[in-house]
């Protein structure tokens, strides 16, 4: 930590001395471009957030832009009233966390032989994995397989179904390949076995790519909707996305709860569907907003690679 800070300082000072006018202009252009980019990305999100908190008529009239009009947290009320929300939240966290850890271990084990191994059948092994990138049986046989394995209606079905993907193996492998081979070889000479090398040497050096893949896996599980729908039958086991989707459908179908009376509780039914849809997104995004900064930290740790060699 200390070393990093001093290095940062040094770099800053060095740059400060060397910064030319051209450099400053480049920085200005870059900053402005990125700011515009930020606005472009942010506007629809802001709009989404505003809709989730707006008065139903304003939503219906498509008046809502940057900020909520006629504050109305009804949609959030609906979401947080759901009895299943917290349980499903827990289920999702379990699936994402367990799935992430197991997948990372599995991916490293699968990628290590591809990057460092010289064994009979390596080419077959490589093609065997890659083949699954283009050919798959589809949802029905997948379901039957999960059932055969006795995983139906368990969270393990969700975890195992996407435990290892060819795509992620390729990504991890290609990062492993950028690690100097001498490290592995000298460890071999020192008598370390491949498992030891993988866990003690390679994995600590691969934090940036593992952080990226971890993020993919976590978000993949977090956003997954179709697999839980197919593989889970008990409400007890439902994941967050299933409950949220149900709430949206619920809000949308309240359009059929017609009545002569009552302006407020029924007239916004159509809009409530829209508000809920957006509120659900906000609720699903917040935990990921909390997770991302922790992952972001690991991206930077790869900078230390050079020191290992020396």
């Amino acid at each position: 930590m200390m070393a990093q800070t001093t290095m940062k300082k040094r770099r800053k000072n060095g740059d400060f001395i060397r910064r030319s006018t051209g450099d400053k202009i480049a920085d200005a252009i870059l900053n402005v471009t990125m700011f515009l980019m930020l606005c472009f990305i942010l506007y629809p999100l802001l709009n989404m957030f505003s809709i989730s908190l707006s008065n139903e008529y304003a939503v219906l009239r498509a008046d809502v832009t940057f900020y909520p009009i006629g504050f109305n947290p009804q949609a959030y009320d609906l979401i947080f009233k759901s009895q299943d929300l917290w349980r499903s939240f827990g289920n999702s966290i379990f699936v994402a966390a367990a799935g992430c850890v197991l997948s990372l271990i599995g991916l490293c084990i699968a990628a290590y032989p591809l990057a460092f191994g010289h064994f009979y059948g390596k080419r077959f092994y490589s093609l065997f994995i890659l083949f699954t990138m283009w050919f798959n049986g589809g949802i029905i046989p997948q379901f039957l397989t999960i059932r055969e394995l006795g995983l139906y209606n368990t969270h393990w079905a969700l975890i195992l179904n996407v435990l290892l993907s060819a795509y992620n193996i390729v990504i991890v492998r290609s990062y492993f390949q950028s690690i100097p081979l001498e490290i592995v070889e000298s460890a071999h000479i020192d008598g370390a076995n491949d498992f030891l090398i993988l866990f003690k040497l390679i994995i600590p050096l691969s934090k940036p790519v593992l952080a990226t893949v971890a993020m993919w896996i976590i978000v993949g599980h977090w956003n997954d909707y179709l697999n839980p729908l197919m593989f889970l039958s008990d409400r007890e086991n439902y994941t967050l996305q299933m409950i949220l989707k149900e709430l949206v459908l619920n809000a949308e179908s309240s359009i059929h709860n017609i009545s002569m009376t009552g302006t407020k509780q029924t007239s916004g039914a159509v809009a409530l569907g829209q508000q809920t849809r957006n509120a659900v997104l906000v609720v699903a995004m917040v935990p990921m907003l909390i997770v991302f900064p922790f992952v972001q930290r690991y991206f930077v740790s790869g900078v230390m690679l050079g020191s290992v060699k020396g």
Partner: protein
Amino acid sequence: MKKTLAIVLALAMLLGSIGLAESTVEVYTQKLLDAVPTLEKSEALYFEDGLNITGMGVHFNSYPTEFDGCFYFPAIEKMTGAHIGIDWRVEDNYGTQVATTLASSNLPDIIQAGDYGISALVSEGAILPLDDYLDLMPNIVAAVGENRMADWREADGHIYTIPTIVNVPGSQTVQVRKDWLDALGLPLPQTWEDWMTVWRAIRDNDCNGNGDPTDEIPLALEQGSSGERSMASLLNAFGIKASSDCQFCVLDDGTYTMVYEHPRYREFLETVQAMYAEGLIDQQFATRTQSELFTIMDTNLCGTAMTWAERAKLSTYANIDAGDADALWESVAPITGPYGDQMTQERAAVTGLWSITVAAEDKIEEIIKVFDWCFSPEGINLYNYGIEGVSYDWVDGKAVMYPEVVANGFVDYRAMGMQYEPFGGAWQTEAFMQGLFAGVALEDLDPGAASFYNGLAVVNTGKFYAMPQTLETEEYTEYRAELITTGVCVLRDQCVAGQITVDEFFAKYEALKAQGLQEVIDAGTAAYAKLVGG
């Protein structure tokens, strides 16, 4: 900083979940459940040894989500001895869930086809025809009624389902901005010429007063969930008695065929194309989804439309809320066509819901008896009103629900487990009206609500035609996507938008017929003749 933010967000989410008081729904759900043990055995049907029925069905979201807390199934079990255990599935992607159930060859006793389609279940050989058992279900046959028997049958002439029945008047109406017409000095249109005058006036004037005379849409065309109802109101104005998806119709001589075969279709298409070119029809008709239609109705952008009757009320309120105090969407009688035709589709009352699978072959009679019991007077009362003394009382020979039960329209009523549509039954007009009015008298309704009521029960009276159902023959199922939805429907819309001429439309339509559409038409014609002929 970031960690503080994380903690604050987590706390905010937690706080949101605290502080919930017990609602009317919870109170009544419990009361109904507590009253189940007091129910008596039904004299009409009771299985002393019990009967276990397993099922798989769609869970509609406005109904109780905790099935254990819903009184309906325990009540049926107490009264008939039949235990019904349904594996309720999420509505979304239900078809895929049916597919996986079939593939695992682990069928329940009863199943809802849902969006998988009854004809697809038949072709899988998964469900049993019920024609031979009509004697065992006198109540259901009576509830369907002699004149609606054809609606109950599938295209192959067989009955495969226990239906759900909704005895409720019309649902969609033509609606106009009465205040705009008043401002323009025009009366409510009666004839086709009147309508054209109204549409042109809306097009040419700045009715919404925003300074832009071009942004008012004279006529927005109605949409179904996937655009299938497009132009139903205009087809009807030309005397074309179209099916719900507007692809088929019954000619005057009783022949069932595609609407494009109708002698007036060419004229209809030419007229609509001209109207589009003239700017009388919504220029976005091909993409106008239902919610977008509501948006333009709510935002002073649309002059006339056909949609759910309820919309007259809601859009009126929305416009008033936006500051347009005089706004009024008036429900009016169907559009009168150039030849004086004036008609509208009747709401389909009989919908096939449950099928009995091949897995239940040995207890099919018992299962049918249970369903039939649900359509008996006892069953109908349970379904519509709940339990006597708990949710309703008899007043002058009429079941009257307690005010709290219907105070919130159908919302609470359904959440308590009544009119349990996922399982189906016969919904009575009387129960519908009690829920609809929620204790308010007809004369106390404000103009918006009155317009809604008119749309439901007044303006269309006597104008309904018996809507033919779209017959899902084998040929239809095979070619539907290829030749109809991505075939002739696309041509129709391209023609209306002026991308192709009417002659080109018919030339391409003939080509589609050669590709197999003719087989679809012939199969449909034959199936309909057989259905109607008996």
